[in-house]
């Protein structure tokens, strides 16, 4: 098993502070992917080999969100305008029944975008 600690925090101005944190201890595999989506370009990354039901953590963010979008396994295009952290197979299934390959399109003609993805899953049947 591989321990993965996660923290999701949000501090609302003049409002509450949200802190969601835990350590996941059921993953047997993980992949960390970093790719550059060049200006006006595309990039495709392999995320994990199984079904979304095998995944237990998915975190993805970019350094530039200027007209960036992605498709999961050939599905519909999703605007990538902020970081994403999903914990548990249920929330990760929001991305689709599988989450094997993500194709990014950078609509910005001016800025490259570096995307980082961490996926953890249970590799054993």
């Amino acid at each position, binding site marked *: 098993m591989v321990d*993965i600690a996660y923290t999701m925090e*949000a501090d609302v101005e003049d409002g509450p502070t*949200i802190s969601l944190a835990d350590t996941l201890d059921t993953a047997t595999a993980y992949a*960390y992917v970093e790719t550059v989506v060049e200006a006006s370009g595309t990039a495709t990354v392999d995320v994990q080999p199984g079904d979304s039901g095998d995944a237990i953590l998915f*975190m993805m963010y970019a350094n530039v969100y200027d007209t960036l979008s992605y498709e999961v396994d050939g599905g519909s295009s999703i605007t990538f305008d*902020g*970081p994403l952290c999903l914990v548990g197979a249920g929330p990760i299934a929001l991305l689709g029944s599988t989450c094997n390959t993500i194709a990014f399109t950078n609509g910005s003609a001016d800025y490259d975008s570096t995307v980082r993805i961490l996926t*953890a899953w249970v590799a054993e049947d």
Partner: protein
Amino acid sequence: MAYDFDIDYSLRAAVDGGPALSKTGTIEVGAFDMLKGTAAKSGGTASFDLTAEDPATVEFFSVESSNYEDLIFAIDGGDSITLDGPIMLTGAGQVSLLGATMATIVFTNRDTVAAANITIRIGRSGVYTPA
């Protein structure tokens, strides 16, 4: 459009003996909603009215529960989704993963041991334009 206040967010994940990822940022919203409810054990439900706004104006969504043992939810009568961990979505594009509409969310707690105390937080534009 001028928004009223900021939400500073921070996401971090660290693999024991492996990479650590961290991302911080700020989004601006005009309204912030916090909703709390309890789904009793053994099939209890909790229903929340989320927002009358166009989901495209929702920039922040989080949901957490005190009990993820056997909890599901459905938005606007859509497919049931297992909630086995917290969700934090930042950016209207990411929030759209929840569906094209966000009027009502219903949780069902199938765990037979404990209730599920659920908290939802939404950051949105604060502007509602009737159809």
